[in-house]
């Protein structure tokens, strides 16, 4: 996991890359969910506010909702994990982000999030 990512207490992360943001769920969350068998992601250009449900992820055990860590507009969707959700459980696979977004509220909303190390402390 990239040490620069910021996390929510509900296990989402956001990572800045060239002024855009990658959004996904943490390695801890993936491990807790176990076998992931289904992911539903939004269409590009959909706009979400911070805290809104933007995705659903199903493991063998249960369905979980995924919340936006910051507000923004979807500019890219990771179709690879939609088609092969089991890739999330593959430790050698790197591209585990769900969506890429543009955000205007970033500076205000990012401040509420946890550093990765603080997040790990929080969940362990």
């Amino acid at each position, binding site marked *: 996991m990239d040490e620069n990512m910021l996390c929510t207490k509900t296990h989402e992360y956001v990572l800045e890359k060239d002024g855009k943001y990658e959004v996904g769920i943490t390695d801890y969350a993936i491990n807790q969910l*176990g*076998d992931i*068998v*289904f992911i539903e992601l939004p269409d590009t250009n959909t706009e979400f506010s911070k805290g809104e449900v933007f995705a*659903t992820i199903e493991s*063998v*055990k*249960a369905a979980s909702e995924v919340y936006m860590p910051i507000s923004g507009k979807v500019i890219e969707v990771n179709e690879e994990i939609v088609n092969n959700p089991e890739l999330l*459980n593959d430790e050698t696979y790197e591209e585990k982000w769900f969506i890429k977004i543009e955000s205007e509220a970033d500076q205000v909303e990012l401040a509420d999030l946890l550093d990765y190390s603080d997040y790990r402390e929080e969940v362990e």
Partner: protein
Amino acid sequence: MTKRTFLYDKHVELGAKMVDFAGWEMPVQYTSIIEEHKNVRENVGLFDVSHMGELIVYGEDALPFLNKLVPQDISKLTDKKAVYCQLPNKDGGLIDDLIIYKLEDKKYLIIANASRVDEDLNWMSLNQLGFNVEIDNISHKYSLIAVQGPKACDLINCAGLIDLPPFFSIKRAELFNINLWVSRTGYTGEDGVEILVKNEFAEYVWDKLLELGKQYKVMPVGLGARDTLRLEASLHLYGNDLDENTTPVEAGLSWSVSKTKTEDYNGKKVIMEQLKNGGRKKLVGFRMLDKSIARHEYEVYSNGEKVGVVTSGGVSPMRGENIGLAYINSPLDKFSVGSTIQIMIRDKLHDAEIVKRPFIEKRNKV
């Protein structure tokens, strides 16, 4: 305060994820639910099911007492044989589902669901008046280990028991020089046994089976795969598919109900009437026609109308699709194998097809 089985330390040592189930801290998975599931279908799996309840019913009136409690004919049960039973209330709704073994004349062993033992005991005491019978709850003295899969019997042979009991029978046996009970039953649709052993020997037997089982590719299996395995085999889960508002007929368990039993039993009037005319609802199996997953309590629709509810749903690792069980409540004759229904998943309707149950071919009829 959650309870722990005598194998708790073993689960932690094996890296299991522990969850609360019916007040017990149980392993939900060790490695991966899908991997554990497939290993039970291909090789053999070891399950700690010590949370299940074990009751001994004995005494002069043990037989008439049990016959008052269940729709099955317990007088047909011969020594060491077992029968799948239900425990109906006066209206035919189910308090629990059980396996009853005849150990010997006037002495029976009952295996009950962990979540229902207290209810069962309460119901049995209410029905005990006038019967010369004792009910002994031995759950806290015994551990239960299930060994399931096509190589389960090879493993048990190897552990020192050559003559396995026949399907749905139990016998007193010795494994690794430990005296215990071995029954040819399970909850996976595979061949295999369940081992009832005194708590103090549980760890020893568990370790030996894991060690000896290496040659058969044994894996410990958690409750997660236990659930997906039983769903593929279309075996009911109490609390999901069975409850006090569901009769054996409605649950698709008419096959298990005695049609000839003369004794009266709780719920007999309703159950016999439903055997003739059908129930208020009907259990069906379905497969999702897309990649979505139906879950417990999702609603079932047909032509825009709500017609039922999903009671169990999930993935079928062997079919490579998602499956489930649902109760359809109106009108029953419209829904048969091949019919399309819709399941409401997160405010959207998803197509599913009613299919034959079980979802896989069972391999435990020996």
